């Protein structure tokens, strides 16, 4: 009973102190689950390389959730860095400003490739954006008119594709990857297949034209995956003819189970993505609070360590994991911009 009383007293005391905790000595990072594996590698190596600083804590939860936490304000109980698989939106910058986070530094870390893959046992697959558009769009052009997507098999879309039922596992709306998929595949395919002209003739509003282009069929042949790539992998394992959308690094870690499709005849690899040949990629970012630099120990060092060539260069651990390194000149620019303290 005595022990119990003591513990209660200690807990109450610690709770009371929590409000006025001493300066936080651990960097706190939150945000994109795509950036998470990279941030984890950097955080871990940072902790090992700088024994004076604690290893940063990296939360996952998605780009939007991370930026929302980031924009809560300045101070101990707010995070220092938000990882993001997309550029910060103007509305988010506004929200940040309203909460007092006026000085935000944007740091680009490299590029992430998005690949299409199917079960390893299948034949080679050569995709084009227009194939995916025709197979997955809600409405396609049939006899010069927009109609609900009639295709049930890949071979009906294009004779070069396999004679299998269409089944595609695409990232759900909450993923940053979905936006890239819509822009680089559906919108591009919409244009390339000539459907855009038909839509333009039918709808005058530009926003509506775009949303018609990127609308995905809802009859169950295109499945939104709200979980992570592991879920997509499991779906493909149970439906061998299905096609899934993965990040390049995830695919490379599971290359023995998956067969990757070429897009426009280009095999996705760090080289083809860095050179821009492979069309489906996106930049990855993180955002730092300038006001926390010098207050949270190690924050400046962490960012500098992150953008050093030993982390994001072409032979770095991040590149080995699947990050597509930015070209030499761009990396130099990233470092210069950070040194100069360029603000958003």
């Amino acid at each position, binding site marked *: 009973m005595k022990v119990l009383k003591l513990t209660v007293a200690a807990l109450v005391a610690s709770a009371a102190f929590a409000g006025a*905790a001493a300066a936080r000595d651990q960097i706190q990072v939150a945000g994109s689950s795509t950036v998470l*594996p990279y941030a*984890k590698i950097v955080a*871990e190596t940072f902790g090992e390389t700088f024994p004076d600083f604690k290893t940063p*804590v990296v939360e*996952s939860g998605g780009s939007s959730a991370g930026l929302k936490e980031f924009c809560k304000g300045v101070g101990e109980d707010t*995070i220092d860095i938000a990882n993001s698989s997309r550029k910060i939106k103007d509305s988010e910058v506004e929200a940040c400003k309203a909460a007092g986070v006026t000085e935000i530094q944007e740091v680009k870390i490299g590029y992430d490739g998005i690949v299409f893959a199917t079960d390893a046992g299948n034949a080679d697959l050569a995709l084009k954006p227009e194939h995916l558009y025709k197979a997955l769009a809600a409405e396609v052009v049939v006899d010069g008119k927009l109609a609900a997507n009639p295709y049930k098999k890949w071979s009906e879309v294009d004779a070069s594709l396999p004679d299998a039922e269409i089944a595609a596992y695409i990232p759900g709306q909450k993923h940053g990857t979905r936006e890239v998929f819509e822009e680089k595949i559906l919108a591009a395919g919409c244009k390339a297949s000539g459907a855009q002209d038909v839509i333009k003739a039918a709808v005058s509003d530009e926003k509506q034209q775009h949303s018609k282009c990127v609308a995905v069929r809802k009859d169950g042949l295109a499945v939104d995956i709200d*979980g992570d790539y592991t879920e997509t992998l499991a779906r493909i394992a149970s439906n061998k003819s299905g096609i899934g959308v993965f990040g390049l690094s995830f695919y490379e870690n599971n*290359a023995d189970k998956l067969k990757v499709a070429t897009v426009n005849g280009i095999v996705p690899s760090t080289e083809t993505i860095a050179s821009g040949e492979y069309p489906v990629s996106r930049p990855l970012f993180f955002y730092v609070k300038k006001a926390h630099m010098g207050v949270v120990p190690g924050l400046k060092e962490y960012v500098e360590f992150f953008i050093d060539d030993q982390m994001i260069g072409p032979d770095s651990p991040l590149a080995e994991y699947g990050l597509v390194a930015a070209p030499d000149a761009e990396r130099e620019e990233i470092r210069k911009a950070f040194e100069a303290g360029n603000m958003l």
Partner: protein
Amino acid sequence: MTDLASPTVRVSTRPAETRRDIGIKRRYAAERRFRVYGISAITLGLLFLALLLSTVVSNGYTAFLQTTITLPIEFSEKVIDPKNERSTDAKQLMTANYPLLVRDALVKQLGLDATKRPQVKQATDMVSASARTQLRDMVVADPSIIGKTVPVTLLAEANIDSAFKGQIDLSVAETNRKVKDQQVAWMNQLADAGVLKKSFNTGIFSFGASSRPEAAGVGVALIGSLYMMLIVLVLSLPIGVAASIYLEEFAPKNRLTDLIEVNINNLAAVPSIVYGLLGLAVFINFAGMPRSAALVGGFVLTLMTLPTIIIATRAALKAVPPSIRSAALGLGASKMQTIFHHVLPLAMPGILTGTIIGLAHALGETAPLLLIGMVAFVVDFPGSPLEPSTALPVQIYMWANEAERAFVERTSGAIIILLIFLVFMNLGAILLRRRFERRW
């Protein structure tokens, strides 16, 4: 009325056969049917349990084995401290090129040509990158080791570990897998020499989170879960028991107490994520407590567990026969004495069972922790509940989303650890119940 008035008349007028036919056959058949339903329900439940356990165990038992490579490491002064500065510059030992020591030992062991860099890189890739910190810590702890050659057991890199356990399909093309043919040949060579072998994986219990599967463990999560369970127990048991004793024994029965009762019952059914939102708003944003800390996690889980404990305690108090209370009061005990000397000890088994079920429920929760920042990558061990930590179910969730093959077995391994934790908690509940059980 007529039946009761003249029963004999009725029976005697019926034929003998129909008299006996009071649906015995039909009723027995119904009973048999019901038994079959019951047995099949139990069988189905057991079947699913067996399926779950067998998949988890068959996927996860290999996580408790780890491939290691034992190499004679020469702690050469030339590599660690070439200019002999360690007495003046403390940083020298921290920043020395330790991977070079591993490389040299491996080159020697495999008989490689140290100038062929790509080949040597493939060889050093077989050893975990955590070797660097392992050797550094050894040297920093005991600088006299410099100049000696000591056999050191290093962790094998995760893909080698998976390949050695047969989890990577080596029949697919070399370019499509993470382990190269040359590495497999070396792996077999080292295994034949007895240098590379599987041993019990203590790391899975003692390591914190890591991006390298071989160096990842549930250590931080275990400590975090332990902190939270302690906080939940210490806060929710006294609060819950006091609240239910007051509500059950002292409070007047009126609209207000009815309202409170309805609310408590409702709170028990509120989705746990709601408590997470509450915790974020109250504890972190308003009270300014640290993010990702076990303390906040414990508070949130306490709020979540309280209704369960209150409901269980009230049920246990209600189950104590009123005769006990009357007897105590009749002998001149005060109300307080009646409750604390007689009613509460008798209700104890029920209270403890409810508490432990509530705790077990809290132990398995991830949703409320997501919002208070505990679903995170935490490497450093938390020295107090105020420092960032994770929890066991969070670790399972995070590993389940990893791309590396070696995390598949570790996910199941962590599930096994969590299940063992739960079994022990339930055992504790049974033991406590046995101890406190009294008859009257």
